[in-house]
């Protein structure tokens, strides 16, 4: 994908691709903002019961935080041209990402077994919808991560601008997904 740039003092000093990603993230914020506002509106109405969030979701929160840290240091080692550490940390992030998905899945199952299904109460519907939508967005991040890993192992290691930008985009998006998850979980736990 080709990106055009102009170097002129009047324009933003921001990489256009990264900037585009930020706009995309703003629209994702609006998406989840809408879902959580709808949650508040609905909660104010009758027929709402509070669900007990299975504690496995705290573990998955820990995992996603750790994955952000590993990815952060992967990016640091890339800048410092520490190729093997870079590869290892990328791989670690990937595994942590997988673990996160598995834990979420387990969490949904546990919630289901405790009697909260998708249909019977809107509180449950919201829980599955919101956490599911988050998982879907993180899945996109996993796709980018896999592409980065393939590049890391197939291409010769090099520190060119294009790859650097791509890595930076991945890092920003991944952190964003982590922060989003913490917001969503906190929201569900504390808005009662």
């Amino acid at each position, binding site marked *: *994908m*080709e*990106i*055009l*740039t*102009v*170097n*002129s*003092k*009047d*324009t*933003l000093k*921001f990489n*256009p*691709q990264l*900037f*585009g990603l930020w*706009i*995309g993230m*703003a*629209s*994702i914020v*609006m*998406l*989840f*903002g*809408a*879902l959580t506002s*709808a949650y508040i*509106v*609905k909660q104010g*109405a*009758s*027929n*709402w019961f509070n669900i007990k969030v299975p504690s496995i979701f705290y573990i998955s929160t820990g995992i996603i935080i750790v994955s952000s840290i590993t990815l952060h240091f992967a990016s640091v080692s890339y800048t410092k041209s520490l190729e093997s550490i870079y590869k290892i940390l990328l791989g670690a992030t990937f595994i942590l990402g997988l673990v996160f998905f598995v834990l979420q899945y387990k969490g949904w199952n546990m919630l289901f077994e405790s009697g909260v299904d*998708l*249909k019977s*109460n*809107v509180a449950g*519907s*919201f829980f599955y*919808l919101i956490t599911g*939508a988050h998982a879907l967005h993180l899945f996109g991040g996993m796709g980018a991560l896999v592409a980065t890993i393939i590049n890391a192992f197939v291409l010769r290691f090099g520190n060119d601008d294009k790859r650097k930008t791509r890595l930076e985009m991945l890092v920003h998006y991944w952190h964003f997904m982590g922060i989003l998850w913490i917001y969503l979980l906190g929201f569900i736990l504390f808005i009662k």
Partner: protein
Amino acid sequence: MASVETLTREDVLIKEQGFNDHFHDHHHGDKYQTGFLGHYVFSMDHKVIARQFLITGIFWAVVGAAMSIIFRLQLGFPEESMAWLKPLLGKWIEVTDGVGKLSPEFYYALVTMHGTILVFFVLTAGLSGTFSNLLIPLQLGARDMASPFLNMLSYWFFFMAGMVMLYSLFISTGPFSGGWTAYPPLSALPQASQGSGSGMTLWLVSLTLFVVSVLLGGINYITTVLNLRTKGMSLFRMPLTIWAFFVTAVIGVLSFPVLASGFFMLIFDRSLGTSFFLNEIFIGGQALDRVGGSAILYQHLFWFLGHPEVYIIILPAMGIVSEVLSVHARKPIFGYTAMILSILAIAFLSFIVWAHHMFMSGVNPFISNFFVVFTLIIAVPSAIKVFNWITTLYGGNIRLNTAMLYAIGFISMFISGGLTGIFLGNSAIDIQLHDTYFVVAHFHIVMGVAAFFGMFAGIYHWYPKMYSRFMDETLGKVHFWLTMVGAYLVFWPMHYIGMAGVPRRYYSFDTFDAFKHFDTLNKFITIAAIIVFIGQLIFVVNFFYSIWKGKKMTTQNPYGATTLEWTTPIEPIHGNWPGNLPTVHRWAYDYNKDEREFVTQVEPAKEGEVVDH
């Protein structure tokens, strides 16, 4: 490249003062212009993509308008046989004893499709898709969009959205029929009506694809405006068109995801059995076990997009009109900064007025007050813009060509329709007016017709930049007067019908004594609508005829305009400028300045000259 003799003053200025971005050092051209497919189909050139958006938009406009003629026939001539439409509509015309009746179910489907198509496919994609693509790079001095690839995807997602919707017209249960706003329960329960089944599923698929298209396009427009302006093109030197497209894209990127969230919940309700929007519903006397949801919640989500959406439609038209007025009045736009601030104010306010569509849905009247206040405040920036347009015209050396006529017509429509908005914005008056033809009249004039006028102004004005030829002026003027007069004849009477309380979207009024006496007026409206429709065919013919046979463009800058698109070669090239990129030295509206009729943006400032406003 132009030979030395034909170099214009601007060519020379760009050559001497412009800057070399080394664009032509490597061959971009080969990569995306090889062969027919690369050039016309999967093109990544913003000028080609703009034309794709436009022509697809024209297609949908014809389809959507034809639908309105069919349902207008039902409203104007409910007694007449529609058997002659049977070859086109098939089983949707039920013939008994030689008399053909339009099926009521299909009438609702037509109204729904008309709204959906016009609002999303024509006035969103066809308008801002076309002109943002065409003008953002050209007027900012950029080679192309920030990401030509995403730009191409944006078009193809729009295209696919259209194909899915088109397909839904032909399925046996018919397209969705619950209104363009798709309120539950009709949209949430597949068994609620014929169109609520597969028709609604396809509607959701189509509009989800459309949301993706808008987001991809919007991300690109915003990034391009902020990152790819040429040297000297500061934000406050940008033409108002670009300001309008930019703010439109911002609104789109922030409001469409909210609609998407509503769609996801609808999809869950429809196929996974949740009850986000459903509560205690009876179908055919049977109670459903779906409880706990709220239909109003959907309305909130829909209108949180829906109201900004109407500004997504009108802002690009406003930008185009500002530009066309200034060029053809040969005067600087009046109140440039005030114009920008109004655009920003309108954009901001558009996010906090959505519940004015829900005064009658049972929202708390105290909350309504809040929305009344902000709704009425929108009139302030709107009025500022109107005053500035009129003042721009005042004392101008006006060229009354088709583009200019449409720009002036836009002002008239915007005033007429904006005033009725102030009626509707009062929650007490809205008790009488809500869901009547008064609302139909309001939004068709202020949004439908006005946005079309902006679009026409833009098409007639920038046609030479799209096809290197002009559209026919005589046909253009006939088209204008038919549309201008016809549109008022169609929509003006609807105000009276609406004040009398006639509800919108009804199939027939036979059984209502209170509304029977409007039959003559309804006939009149239908006849006017048919005439306007025929008038639009003149435009379509003119448009396609002129692509091949129109008067050729012989000079680079035929209107004597100041903006950068008129410094590019007559025959468009990839990368827009053959050599250097232009450097900008002044704002976009230096008309009739220091004895010169116009001074282009590439002209360096003289000692002590004021070049910003």
